[in-house]
């Protein structure tokens, strides 16, 4: 294998590690909001501790993603699964930087917090599933 053949799998692997870091840590906060895990900390503390790493994961994801996109921009643009993924990603990021940040604050109604957590988990899962389906649609 020459070096250029290594580039794409390395970029893909970084993309996987990036989304494990971002989506993984977001899921931890969601599980805390739902009251099913991470109970040794408050949601606000957990979110504050994890947020820098969530952002690092998002940075890795949003750097390696467009790099893969650039290898085949036209095709990805017209792929319905890719379009679905991008829509979910935009919504998930919007949710993360608006509603999700407020949902962890103390004093928020538990129902609202749980609602935000469920929507967050669903949206991020759809981002991953949509990504997988790009090659199968």
């Amino acid at each position, binding site marked *: 294998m020459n070096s250029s053949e290594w580039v794409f799998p390395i970029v893909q692997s970084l993309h996987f590690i990036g989304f494990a870091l971002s989506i993984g840590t977001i899921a931890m906060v969601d599980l805390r909001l739902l009251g099913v895990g991470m109970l040794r900390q408050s949601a606000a503390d957990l979110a504050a501790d994890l947020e820098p790493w969530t952002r690092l994961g998002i940075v890795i994801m949003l750097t390696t993603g467009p790099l893969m996109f650039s*290898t085949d921009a036209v095709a990805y643009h017209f792929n319905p699964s890719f379009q679905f993924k991008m829509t979910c990603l935009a919504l998930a990021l919007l949710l993360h930087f608006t509603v999700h940040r407020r949902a962890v604050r103390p004093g928020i109604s538990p129902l609202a917090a749980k609602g935000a957590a469920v929507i967050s988990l669903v949206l991020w899962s759809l981002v991953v599933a949509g990504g997988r389906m790009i090659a199968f649609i």
Partner: protein
Amino acid sequence: MRTTFWKIALGVAVVVIAVLIDGAGVKAHHAFGSEFDANAPVLLKGKIAKIEWVNPHTWIHVEIKKDDGSKETWMVEGGSPNTLLRRGANKSTFPEGTDVVVDGYQARDHSEKRANARNVTFPDGRKLFLGMTGTGAPDPEKFDADKAKTLNQTEKDKEKEQEKKQ
């Protein structure tokens, strides 16, 4: 904590930029451009030798008879089973021995008998688009049969080519 975070972010940025520079010609596997040559269209006229109906990609083996009478088998990559099932095709759409014309693009390494499929045309004239939705291969409608290298020309093909030249 803050400074550590930015140190790591900087480290990651350096690595990513290094990869970007190194990969100025990033090659994408399973993205059309890395494996296949958009400037090398081929037209394969032959019999289906075998269909590999497998994830993540289907493969049709086409046995063609060359001008000198020798035979060679080409492996042509199609979309995933799901992609083709959605278009109404399945494994039994491709019985062994069926005469087909497959158009596509040859592997970058021209010594390989491997191609990425666009369309398959059956004896009754049915045409099926084999490619995945957006693999980066050129538009199926734009396949230029006149430019494509026919690997096993019939007398008719040769006449046509002569006409074109004149």
